[in-house]
């Protein structure tokens, strides 16, 4: 999977590239509008992540260029501007998602995967990890072909975990993924904890290995122990 990252802040670009690189994405990073236009006219990508404010232009222009080329790639806009108009405009001109800075890298990762899943609908509808299988069209979860009945939030949590295999997830990132930023953090951390407890129980009850590991002080990690 090839991803083009257009972000002028070098440190942020580097962190994103490193994070996504772990997930077997091939990430190319450019810092300028013109570089990005050159790249997309020469190569095809599975997804383009664009910052709106670039030193030599607005990221919206890159989205327009991609749409004119009838490119099939997914587009995610990241911006420090949290204006509703920007959000609406981004989605209107054809980007798939909009993330406001600062965001959690794990959130970007999950959104990227969701965009890619939606784009490649010709392929499989399933996400697999060891004995766990998620069919995201029907929102059903199986452990070795036995269905596990999960609540909505538990399902979202599991999907978030499965999009971030072997990545340490902070409680804040998980809470924000589940509720956005409207719910107060102190309360939501406790709910994250109780959801995880239930999810773990439901999975292990069906004979699943316990892949959810807690990391002291930080949060959780999903993957082989």
């Amino acid at each position: 999977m090839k991803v083009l990252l257009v972000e002028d802040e070098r440190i942020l670009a580097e962190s994103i590239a490193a994070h996504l690189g772990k997930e077997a994405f091939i990430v190319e990073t450019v810092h300028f509008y013109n570089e990005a236009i050159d790249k997309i006219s020469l190569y095809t990508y599975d997804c383009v992540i664009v910052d709106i404010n670039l030193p030599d232009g607005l990221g919206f222009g890159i989205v327009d260029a991609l749409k004119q080329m009838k490119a099939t790639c997914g587009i995610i806009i990241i911006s420090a501007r949290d204006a509703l108009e920007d959000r609406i405009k981004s989605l209107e001109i054809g980007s798939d998602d909009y993330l406001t800075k600062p965001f959690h890298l794990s959130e970007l990762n999950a959104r990227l995967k969701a965009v890619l899943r939606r784009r490649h609908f010709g392929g499989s509808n399933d996400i697999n990890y060891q004995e766990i299988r998620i069919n995201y069209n029907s929102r059903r979860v199986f452990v070795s072909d036995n269905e596990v009945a999960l609540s909505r939030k538990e399902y979202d949590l599991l999907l978030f975990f499965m999009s971030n295999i072997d990545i340490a997830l902070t409680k804040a990132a998980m809470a924000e993924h589940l509720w956005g930023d409207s719910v107060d953090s102190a309360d939501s951390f406790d709910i994250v904890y109780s959801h995880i407890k239930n999810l773990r129980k439901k999975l292990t009850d069906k004979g699943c290995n316990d892949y959810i590991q807690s990391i002291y002080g930080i949060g959780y990690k999903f993957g082989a122990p």
Partner: protein
Amino acid sequence: MKLLSRTNLYYISFSVITYLIISGSFYAVVERMIYSEVEERLIVERKDFEQFIRAHGMWEESCYFVENKISLRTVPDTLATFSSFKDTLMFNRYNQQLVPFREHSFYSKIDSKQYKVSIRKSLIESNKLLKFITITMLLSLSVGLLLLFLFQRRISKKLWQPFYDTLSKAKSFEVNDGKGLVLQKQDIFEFNELNSELAKMTDKISRDYKNLKEFTENASHEIQTPLAMINSRVESLIQEKDFKRHQMGWIQDIHESTLRLSKLNHALLLLSKIDNGQFYEQESIELGKLIVTKLMAFDEIFHMKDLAVEYHKTNDLTLMMNHTLADILITNLINNAIKHNFNGGKIHVTISDSQFTIKNTGEPLRLDPKSLFERFKKQNQSSSSLGLGLAIVKKICELYNMRVDYSFAGEFHSMTIRTTIA
């Protein structure tokens, strides 16, 4: 009081006083003149009388037809001379009326006998004249005064018109427009000065306001970027495995603090955006529906904190509001009711046609209720709360001419929002 009515009032009172003084002195002068004229003629008659006495040595009543024109009365012989003028009323025998006369009295010797002689002259003609002159004069003065007054009113209105134009333009001045007032050049120096000063001032205000607005937004964006970097680095850091426990704790502290900073920044930006009127889009919002949706979103938290939520609606309440702001308003109020509640507490939401109330149980308020809606006022200064939630609620209410009030009754803290729209 309006400027025109005030000047008119001064003008009228001043004119009336002047008018009275002029009329009074005019009357006095004319009267004085008439008297001196009459008295002169009386003196001439006295001379005629004395000449007649000297020539004939006696006085014949029959010389004069008019009754009581000259009357004589004997007085005891005295050496003193006497001469006086006075007003008197005499009875007119034809029309049975008392008629004013001027009387000149003096002593005279006829046939070595001392007499008091009184010569009288009717004032009736002179009085008529005086009356006529005065009325004519009063009438013409009044007409003149009235004309002057009307003219002055017209002139003032015309003169002050540019001022009223400027005033109405100043009233419609919007600081958001980003430009000062555009005012026409006037013929009158003072108004021209006023206009140019106003134009300069409003222009500066608009520009400063715009600069400040841009500064707040830019500052917020500039803060957001390094925060994003710190966060991304922290997230990369926690992926590493060889940290000690306490080091992980530090990293978590850094992570949470930056998140908090970022939220704070967001909240401040929101406040300044509301101030700047950047949420101008409006739609009609069914508040009951919105509140139910929000209550459902908070369901898990109610469950966890074991809160009993009651929702009661007597009437639909529909408001014209920006959707984002309505959302934030309700979310903040519910969050507030949860945050200051205790486990196993209650939350009551009631909606009627002109207000809605969110009540919650909780610890007694230690803050001054008046400062409750101020920025950074917190019940517990060390709490993780930003202290901006209710400030934002208040700001949103102000934007839409609503009122938010806090009250405490029984076991409930209530936040009541009253709308002006019935």
